């Protein structure tokens, strides 16, 4: 029998595929470098203290001011209001799907909910600007054309499927034996859902909240179209605000000359945004792994 060495062609295949896999690594590295290098350049000209602690953001004016807090406040305001919508209704939808709905109903409702998540965000932005804001005005709410409320409400609804889907997965993973035990003691469905299932699924549920918040923070088009383009340090959702993402889009799509401090604000703000969402995503992934460990 002929002695065969290792087929080198197999090694080639493995090597090629590994190279493909490296593309994703390269992407992450590239993102970090793309953000860091100009950001470092930026912070050599603008102090960290000014960036993170002053409250006037006017990079394209002269004299230019670089306090990022209005943008962060805008992002936070929208995120908080959006979560006030998404979390209660997302959790409610999840509880219904997991504990109340019949299997046939669930098979229809779950994908239907995913449709909400599949609508492009620019369409949601259009809806917020051209439908929600006029409706709010018609209801007597004192909002202008651009306001945080309309954008945040629509964004909250967009995020409901994210929270519902992950929470429902976590709740379905809770063993039926626990529910049986509670029913056997004379609990009704509400008590079983809230006192047994939700606490048992809590790490998956929190993971879904964190993921929802992360999506809200990173969303661009809805706020770009409906929330406004002027930085405004406020906690009043009736006013207009500019978020970090909207700012990046506005300047990035505009004419700021390459290499200037004004241009580099894109990267400084981008870096701030990236760090925030990255941290949240890590937490969420950790939590999901934790609940998967317990029950699977």
């Amino acid at each position, binding site marked *: 029998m002929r002695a065969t060495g290792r087929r080198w062609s197999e090694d080639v295949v493995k090597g090629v595929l590994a190279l493909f896999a490296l593309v994703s690594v390269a992407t992450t590295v590239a993102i970090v470098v793309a953000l860091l290098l100009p950001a470092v350049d930026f912070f050599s000209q603008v102090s960290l203290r000014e960036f993170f602690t002053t409250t006037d953001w006017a990079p394209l004016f002269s004299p230019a001011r670089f306090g990022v807090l209005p943008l962060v406040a805008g992002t936070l305001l929208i995120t908080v209001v959006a979560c006030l919508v998404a979390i209660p209704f997302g959790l409610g939808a999840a509880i219904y799907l997991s504990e109340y709905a019949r299997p046939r109903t669930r098979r229809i409702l779950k994908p239907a909910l995913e449709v909400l998540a599949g609508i492009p965000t620019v369409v949601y932005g259009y809806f917020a600007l051209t439908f929600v804001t006029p409706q709010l005005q018609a209801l007597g709410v004192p909002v202008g054309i651009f306001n945080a409320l309309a954008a945040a409400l629509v964004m909250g609804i967009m995020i409901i499927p994210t929270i519902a889907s992950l929470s429902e997965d976590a709740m379905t993973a809770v063993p039926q*034996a*626990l529910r049986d035990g509670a029913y056997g*003691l*004379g609990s*009704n469905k509400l008590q079983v859902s809230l006192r047994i299932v939700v606490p*048992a699924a809590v790490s998956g549920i929190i993971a879904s909240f964190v993921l929802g918040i992360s999506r809200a923070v990173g969303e661009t088009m809805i706020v770009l179209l409906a929330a406004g383009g002027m930085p405004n340090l406020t906690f009043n959702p009736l006013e207009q605000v500019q978020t970090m993402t909207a700012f990046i889009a506005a300047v990035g799509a505009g004419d700021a000359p390459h290499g200037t401090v004004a241009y580099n604000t894109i990267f400084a703000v981008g870096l701030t945004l990236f760090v925030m969402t990255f941290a949240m995503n890590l937490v969420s992934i950790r939590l999901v792994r934790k609940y998967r460990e317990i029950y699977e």
Partner: protein
Amino acid sequence: MSDMESSVAEKMPTVSVGETVARRDASGDRPRQTVFDVRDLTVRYGGNPALAGVSLEIHENAVTAFIGPSGCGKSTFIRCFNRMNDLIPSATVEGEVLYRGEDLYGKDVDPVNVRQLIGMVFQKPNPFPKSIYDNVAFGPRVLGWKQELDERVEQSLRQAALWDEVKDRLRDSALSLSGGQQQRLCIARALAVEPEVILMDEPASALDPISTTRIEDLMHELKRDYTIVIVTHNMQQAARVADMTAFFSVDVSSGGRTGILVEYDETQKIFTKPSDQRTEDYVTGRFG
């Protein structure tokens, strides 16, 4: 007790083939209050009957055991007593289950109330992922019995013969207990809502022999104050603990597997002088 055990051990053959009619009220004993009166009960899961035409009466302050080969519907049957089958969408129940004269499946009967009066312990211990205290306190809290919770918890744990082992670590997680302790915790949990009946679906089958003995001793204790119904696949256990025993078997004549009640009598009779050949075959180990 030892008479019965030695009878079973000798596998003394009995004679009569007899009718396959379930017998009620054993002769010669003082009359006992009937707690459950089951009349012609049939349970179907989406069409096929898992259990058909069962009729019997359960007596107060007695331990009644359901025995039989696997698949004969014993678990389905016991779950009818506290309407746990309601939780299965495809299950339908025909016939009557009367609890002290009231139809459990009556129009305005709330299954939640049923389950408070008729408690259940499951085959595999299923403590909640909470502290020992919170497990026992869960039922009372849910029912709104917030006063004297500490006393209730202690009393339930004492009744379940678990108090001494856990009294210093009530706040520890219930999951840190051994299997046998967890099952006694589940019993304490069930006792805490002050039921009148305790149903046990193979309560010791997942436990080691020592824990099993403790659970069986508990059944003796508890039957003074409660009515106990157990399902067991262990004949010796039935012989040891039960006052009345019902033997179920599987009927394949109509194509599917349907559980039927073959014989129901005092335990001593079932194991020494069964009326039905099938019962005799089962208890002497010829099948099942």
